[in-house]
């Protein structure tokens, strides 16, 4: 089992493993977010997804998110693993686990990390529908890079 706090892998993700990485004696709260492949988006049926990553850079960006989280929520520990390859409906695409001494911070830090993943981590999703395929990441989900580039410093996300 990998002990990397931030990882990209092409095999099914294990909640137990990611949560274990952040479990510590001084923490009473662990908030976990699990992103799964949803069948219907805006009424359109997804058959499967494919995720592709620029792996070394994606891991660096996940590590940066980790640093941001630990600065904003002192005492927190975060681990993130993102899946790549072909995923079926209900399979897990990403797991974020954050442990903190107190509960509120665990939720906040987790949500922050998820927002940042969607902004700066070089991972792309290809949707497979009954009538075609598309690499998403543009206006389908959000306006990308409103400032012309990803907000790599994180100033705009409080």
């Amino acid at each position: 089992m990998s002990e990397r706090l931030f990882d990209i892998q092409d095999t099914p993700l294990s909640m137990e493993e990611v949560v274990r990485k952040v479990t510590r004696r001084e923490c009473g709260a662990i908030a976990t977010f699990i992103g799964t492949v949803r069948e219907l988006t805006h009424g359109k049926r997804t058959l499967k997804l494919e995720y592709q990553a620029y792996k070394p850079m994606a891991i660096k960006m996940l590590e940066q998110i980790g640093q941001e989280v630990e600065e904003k929520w002192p005492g927190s520990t975060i681990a993130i693993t993102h899946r790549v390859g072909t995923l079926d409906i209900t399979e897990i695409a990403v797991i974020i686990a954050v442990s903190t001494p107190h509960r509120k911070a665990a939720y906040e830090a987790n949500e922050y990390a998820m927002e940042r993943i969607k902004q700066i981590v070089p991972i792309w999703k290809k949707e497979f529908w009954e009538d075609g395929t598309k690499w998403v990441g543009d206006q389908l989900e959000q306006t990308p890079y409103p400032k012309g580039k990803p907000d790599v410093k994180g100033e705009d996300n409080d």
Partner: protein
Amino acid sequence: MIRLLLFAEFQEQAGTDQVEIDQAGLTVAELKSWLKQEYRFTSLDQTMIAINETYANETDVLKDGDVIALIPPVSGG
């Protein structure tokens, strides 16, 4: 030489996941213009350039030996 990594739609458009280019000295902005002509990539305006795994500015200059990547809007999570 400079290695140019391609992902997602660019990889499919080019039919390969990387190409070698000989364009040291170009800025990132100039690289984008060159790529538009050379590869007829669409949607480069929304695409970031990474130099050696770090997001680059439009004015950064390519050096020989760099690993460049085209980063279209990301959609992980």
